[in-house]
C-alpha cells in the first residue's frame, strides 16, 4: 500500500461494559450469516455500532468454526474507489492475512484496473481462503460515489460463500435492496428494531446505570425518548448523582423541546466550565488525540481530558486499543458544533486553522486540506493541494485530487499555474475537456511572464507558486497536456509538435513526462503511418517507463511497439520486445501481472508465422491460464484473432470463423488506430476458403474501392480488397476485375515501400505473384514472389507463403529452381505438409499420389467410420466398447496414415481414397 493506512479505521471497537443484552437482535444477525447482506439501517444514536460489536463478541464466545471479523469505519474520503477498495482489502487482511495480495498488486499498478477485474480477483482469492469472514462497513452513508456503489453491487452479486457482508448506515444504501429482499438475501435491523423496549430501558437505566428508577419513571423516559438509545444515555448521564431524579424526569417529560437539545443542555450545565469549553472547541475535529486537542484548545491537558471523558462515558468513542485516538459520538458532535456555531461563530475559522496546522505538522495533508476548506481558508487549501500533488499522483489518488481542485474557486486556481495545469491534467485523464484549453493557456501565460521577469530581473507579483520543483517541471507538463488535447481532437501533427516540445523541455529525471510524451508522439506518428518515428518513440518510452517501474504501461506499449515492428517486417525484433516485457517481472520483482497474457499472445502469433503451430497453441494456452487478471483490455480480442489463425492453419475453419466473430464483438481499441480490423481479416479468410459472397459483402459495407486514396491506416483493408478481387476473378473470369486488383497492388506496393513497411511489402508481393500467375504472366509472378522471398528470408516467414495453399505451389517450385536456397526448399516442404493437412487443398498431396503409405487396420477403419458421424470421442469409445484412450490411439494412427491432423480433413481424405 503506497499511502499509510489509518489503523483507527480498521479498529474493531471494544464492547462497552454494562451493555443491555439484546438476544432478539443477536439472533436476527446470526440468521444473517446465511444471507447475502446484513443491513443495519437507522439514524445516528440508535446503537448500530454497539449492536454489531456486541454481536461479534457473542460470535466469538460461541466456539467452533466461528467467522473472523473485518471492521472498516468509512469516511467521506473513501469515495475514491482506489482508496475504498484498498481499505476493504486491508480490513479483510486483518482477518485473513494472506488474502487479497493479487488484488492489491492490481491497485498498485500504474494503470488503475477496471473495478470488475479488481473485484473478480479479490473474490477468487476469497474463494480459496481458509475460513469464514464477516466484513463490516460502518458509516456507509458517507459513500455517495457511483463508482464505489457499483463496485459494491458487483461484490454483492458475486459474493463468495465464505464472505458475510454487514453494512451499517444512517440511510438506506444505494444497493439493490428490493431484489435482495425478494430473494430472501437480506437481513435487516432497522430503527424500529433498535429502539429500546420498556423492559430494555429498565434494564439499562436500573441495571447498567444503577439508577433505581420507578416503573413509572422508566415509562415516562421511554415515552419521551421513544426508545432512542442516545437520548436514554444522555438522560441517564444527566441523572447520575442527582438528588431529585423524579423531578428531573417530570421536567424532561413535560418539555417539548428537541430531546437532544434539552439533554445536552442538562449534561453540559453539570460540567465545569473548562470541560464545556474543551468540548465546544474540539467539536470541529472528526478524530482527536491528546496532542491535537492541545493544539486547538491551546492547552496542555488534552490527553487527560479525553481519558476523563472516556471514564465518565461522555460520548467519546475510542478508536484504538491504546486509547490514543477518540471521536465524539456523531450526534453529540453535531449538537456541540451547532452550539459553537450559534454561540461563538468567530471561533470556527481559527479552530480549523489550528487543526490544519497540526495535521500539516504531522504529515497528514488530506486532513489538513479538509480543515482548511472547512475553515474557509481556500488559498491555504490551495497551497496544501499544490504541495501534495506529486504524492497523490504516485498513490493513484487522482479522484481525491480532482475533487479538491474542482472545489477550489476559479479565482484561486488562476493565480496558481501548478494548479491550473493539474486541473487540466486531471480533467483530461477523466475524459472531460471543458475549460482545459483555457487552464493551459493561463498556466502558459504565467510561465511566459516568469521568463520575462527573469530576463528583466523583476519578480512577478501576483503569481503563487508553492512547489518550485513542480513549477520547474511545468513547461514540459503544459506542453504535454496540450499534446494530449490535440490527440483527442484528432490533430496528429499538433500532438507530435507539442509532445516534441514537451520532450525538449522535460528535465532529465522526469521519466514520467518523458515517457508519456514519447508515447504520445509514437501514437500520433503511428496513426499518421510514420512508423519509424513511432517505433523509436515507443522504444524510448519503454526505457523511461521502466525506470519508474510503470510495469503495465511498459507491457501495454510493448504490444504497440511489436505491432509496429511486425508491420516493418522485423519479426525477430517483435519477439525480443515481447520477451523483454515478460522478463520485466524478474528484473523488477513486481507482483503486477497485468499484460503478461498479452505478451504470450504476441509470441504465439509469431510462432504461427514460423509455422510452429504446437508452440503457438502452447503460448495461447499459457495466456488463457494466466487469466483476465494478467490481461490488458485488448487481450480478449487479440487472443481470439491469434487462435483463429492457428485454427485456420490447422484446417479447422469453423472454429476459426467462430473465433473471429467473437473477436469482432470484443474489439477494444483504446486510442490505437485500428490498422488490422478483425472484419478485414475475416473477409480475407472467407475469400481464401471459397466464401466469396461474404467477402464481397464486406467490401460493400466498408465502401472500399480500387480508386480510394491510399493511406497506411487502410492499407490492410485495401490489400484485402485486392485479394477479394483476385478471388472474384477466379470465379467469374472477368479480366477487368483482375486488372483492377493488379493496379491496386502496384499502388499499395509503392506506398508500402515509401513508408518502409517491409512486412506490408512482403504481403503485397505475394498477392502480386498470385495475380500475375492467374493472368498467365509467370515471369512477373515469379519475380514478385522472388522479391517477397528475398525480404522474408532473414526473418524466417513461413505461413505468409504457405497459407496461400496450392495456387502458390508451382510458383514457389519455379522460384526455387531459378534461385535454389535452403529457405525455398523449406517453404516447399512446409507447404506440402500443410496442404495435405488442409481439406480444402486442391492440389494432390505427395503422400496420396500413390495411395496410402500404409493400409488401415480393421479397428482403424471402424474408428474412421464413426469419425464420419456426429459422435464425440467418449461416444465412439462406448460404441466400440473400448476405452477412450484406445480410441485416441486409433484416431492418431488414422490421421498419421491419411496424412492429416484433424477429423474433418480425415473424412475428406478418406472419401478421396474411397475408404468411406
Amino acid at each position, binding site marked *: 500500500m503506497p499511502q499509510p493506512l489509518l489503523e483507527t479505521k480498521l479498529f474493531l471497537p471494544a464492547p462497552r461494559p454494562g451493555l443491555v443484552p439484546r438476544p432478539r437482535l443477536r439472533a436476527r444477525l446470526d440468521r444473517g450469516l446465511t444471507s447475502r447482506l446484513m443491513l443495519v439501517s437507522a*439514524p445516528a444514536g440508535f446503537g448500530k455500532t454497539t449492536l454489531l460489536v456486541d454481536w461479534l463478541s457473542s460470535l466469538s464466545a460461541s466456539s467452533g468454526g466461528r467467522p473472523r471479523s473485518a471492521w472498516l469505519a468509512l469516511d467521506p474520503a473513501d469515495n475514491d474507489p482506489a482508496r475504498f477498495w484498498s481499505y476493504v482489502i486491508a480490513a479483510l487482511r486483518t482477518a485473513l492475512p494472506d488474502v487479497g495480495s493479487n488484488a492489491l498488486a492490481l491497485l498498485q499498478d500504474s494503470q488503475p484496473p477496471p473495478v470488475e477485474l479488481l473485484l473478480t480477483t479479490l473474490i477468487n482469492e476469497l474463494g480459496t481462503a481458509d475460513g469464514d469472514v464477516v466484513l463490516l462497513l460502518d458509516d456507509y452513508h458517507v459513500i455517495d460515489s457511483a463508482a464505489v456503489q457499483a463496485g459494491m453491487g458487483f461484490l454483492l452479486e458475486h459474493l463468495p460463500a465464505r464472505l458475510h457482508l454487514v453494512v451499517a448506515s444512517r440511510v438506506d444504501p444505494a444497493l439493490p435492496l428490493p431484489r435482495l429482499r425478494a430473494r430472501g438475501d437480506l437481513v435487516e435491523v432497522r430503527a424500529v428494531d433498535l429502539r429500546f423496549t420498556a423492559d430494555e430501558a429498565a434494564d439499562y437505566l436500573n441495571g447498567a446505570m444503577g439508577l433505581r428508577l420507578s416503573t413509572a419513571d422508566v415509562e415516562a423516559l421511554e415515552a419521551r425518548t421513544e426508545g432512542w438509545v442516545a437520548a436514554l444515555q444522555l438522560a441517564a448521564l444527566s441523572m447520575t448523582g442527582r438528588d431529585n431524579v423524579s423531578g428531573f424526569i417530570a421536567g424532561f417529560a413535560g418539555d417539548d423541546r*428537541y*430531546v*437532544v437539545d434539552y439533554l445536552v443542555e442538562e449534561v453540559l450545565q453539570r460540567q465545569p466550565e473548562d470541560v464545556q469549553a474543551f468540548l465546544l472547541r474540539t467539536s470541529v475535529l472528526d478524530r482527536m488525540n491528546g496532542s491535537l486537542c492541545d493544539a486547538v484548545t491551546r492547552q496542555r491537558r488534552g490527553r487527560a481530558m479525553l481519558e476523563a471523558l472516556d471514564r465518565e462515558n461522555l460520548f467519546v468513542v475510542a478508536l484504538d486499543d491504546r486509547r490514543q485516538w477518540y471521536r465524539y459520538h456523531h450526534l453529540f458532535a453535531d449538537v456541540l458544533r451547532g452550539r459553537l456555531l450559534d454561540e461563538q461563530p468567530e471561533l470556527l475559522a481559527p479552530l480549523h486553522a489550528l487543526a490544519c496546522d497540526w495535521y500539516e505538522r504531522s504529515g497528514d495533508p488530506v486532513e489538513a486540506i479538509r480543515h482548511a476548506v472547512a475553515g474557509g481558508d481556500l488559498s491555504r487549501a490551495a497551497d496544501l493541494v499544490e504541495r501534495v500533488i506529486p504524492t497523490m499522483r504516485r498513490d493513484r489518488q487522482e479522484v481525491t485530487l480532482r475533487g479538491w481542485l474542482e472545489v477550489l474557486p476559479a479565482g484561486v486556481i488562476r493565480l496558481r499555474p501548478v494548479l491550473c495545469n493539474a486541473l487540466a491534467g486531471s480533467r483530461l485523464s477523466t475524459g472531460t475537456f471543458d475549460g482545459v484549453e483555457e487552464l493551459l493557456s493561463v498556466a502558459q501565460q504565467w510561465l511566459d511572464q516568469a521568463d520575462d521577469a527573469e530576463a528583466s530581473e523583476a519578480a512577478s507579483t501576483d503569481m503563487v507558486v508553492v512547489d518550485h520543483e513542480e513549477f520547474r517541471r511545468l513547461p514540459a507538463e503544459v506542453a504535454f497536456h496540450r499534446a494530449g488535447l490535440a490527440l483527442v481532437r484528432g490533430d496528429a501533427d499538433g500532438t507530435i509538435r507539442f509532445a516534441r516540445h514537451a520532450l525538449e523541455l522535460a528535465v532529465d529525471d522526469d521519466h514520467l513526462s518523458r515517457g508519456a510524451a514519447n508515447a504520445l508522439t509514437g501514437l500520433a506518428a503511428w496513426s499518421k503511418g510514420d512508423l519509424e518515428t513511432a517505433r523509436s518513440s515507443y522504444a524510448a518510452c519503454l526505457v523511461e517507463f521502466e525506470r519508474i517501474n510503470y510495469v503495465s504501461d511498459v507491457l501495454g506499449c510493448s504490444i504497440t511497439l511489436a505491432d509496429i515492428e511486425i508491420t516493418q517486417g522485423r519479426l525477430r525484433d517483435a519477439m525480443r520486445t515481447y520477451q523483454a516485457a515478460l522478463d520485466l517481472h524478474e528484473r523488477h520483482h513486481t507482483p503486477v501481472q497485468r499484460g503478461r497474457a498479452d505478451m504470450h499472445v504476441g509470441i504465439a502469433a509469431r510462432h504461427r508465422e514460423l509455422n510452429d503451430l504446437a508452440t503457438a497453441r502452447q503460448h495461447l494456452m499459457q495466456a488463457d491460464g494466466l487469466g483476465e487478471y494478467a490481461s490488458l483490455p485488448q487481450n480478449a480480442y487479440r487472443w481470439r484473432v491469434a487462435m483463429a489463425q492457428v485454427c485456420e492453419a490447422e484446417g479447422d475453419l469453423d472454429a476459426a470463423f467462430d473465433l473471429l466473430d467473437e473477436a469482432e464483438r470484443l474489439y477494444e481499441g483504446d486510442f490505437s488506430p485500428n490498422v488490422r480490423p478483425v472484419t478485414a481479416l475475416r473477409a480475407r479468410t472467407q475469400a481464401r476458403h471459397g466464401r466469396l459472397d461474404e467477402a464481397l459483402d464486406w467490401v460493400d459495407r466498408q465502401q472500399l474501392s480500387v480508386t480510394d486514396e491510399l493511406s497506411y491506416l487502410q492499407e490492410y483493408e485495401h490489400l484485402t480488397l485486392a485479394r477479394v478481387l483476385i478471388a472474384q476473378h477466379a470465379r467469374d473470369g472477368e479480366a477487368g476485375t483482375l486488372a483492377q486488383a493488379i493496379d491496386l497492388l502496384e499502388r499499395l506496393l509503392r506506398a508500402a515501400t515509401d513508408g518502409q513497411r517491409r512486412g506490408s511489402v512482403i504481403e503485397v508481393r505475394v498477392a502480386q505473384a498470385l495475380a500475375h500467375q492467374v493472368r498467365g504472366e509467370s515471369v512477373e509472378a515469379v519475380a514478385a514472389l522472388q522479391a517477397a522471398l528475398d525480404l522474408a528470408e532473414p526473418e524466417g516467414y513461413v505461413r505468409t507463403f504457405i497459407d496461400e495453399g496450392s495456387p502458390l505451389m508451382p510458383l514457389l517450385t519455379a522460384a526455387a529452381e531459378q534461385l535454389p536456397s535452403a529457405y525455398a526448399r523449406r517453404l516447399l516442404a512446409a507447404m506440402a505438409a500443410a496442404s495435405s493437412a488442409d481439406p480444402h487443398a486442391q492440389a494432390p498431396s505427395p503422400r496420396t499420389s500413390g495411395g496410402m503409405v500404409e493400409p488401415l487396420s480393421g479397428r482403424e477403419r471402424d474408428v474412421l467410420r464413426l469419425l464420419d458421424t456426429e459422435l464425440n470421442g467418449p461416444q465412439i469409445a462406448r460404441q466400440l466398447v473400448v476405452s477412450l484412450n484406445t480410441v485416441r490411439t486409433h484416431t492418431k494412427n488414422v490421421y498419421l496414415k491419411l496424412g492429416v491432423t484433424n477429423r474433418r480433413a480425415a473424412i475428406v481424405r478418406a472419401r478421396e481414397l474411397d475408404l468411406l
Partner: protein
Amino acid sequence: MRKAHTSIGRGHVAGWYEIRVQGRLEQRWSAWFDGARLTHDQKGTTVLLCHVDDQAALYGLIDKVGDLELQLVSVTADMCSPARGARSSAD
C-alpha cells in the same frame, strides 16, 4: 443577447423553503441550518424558513435534519415568503 429564462435547469433555482420538523427546536440552531429562521407552532412542530441557492443546498439542509434525527414532517417551496423582500436586499 437573449437572456436565459430562470426556470431553465431546475437544479439552479434559488428560493425559499419551509422545512417542518417534529419537536421544538431552539433559535440557537439557526446558524447550523445556514441562517434559517425558526418558528414554533401549537402542534409542537418547528418550521425552518430557509433560502437556498439550488436544489443541492436544499438536500444539504435536509441531510442536516436527518443528522440530528429530527423527524421530518414536510418540505414546502414557499414562493411568496414574507421574509423575501427583507432577505433579497442582503443577497
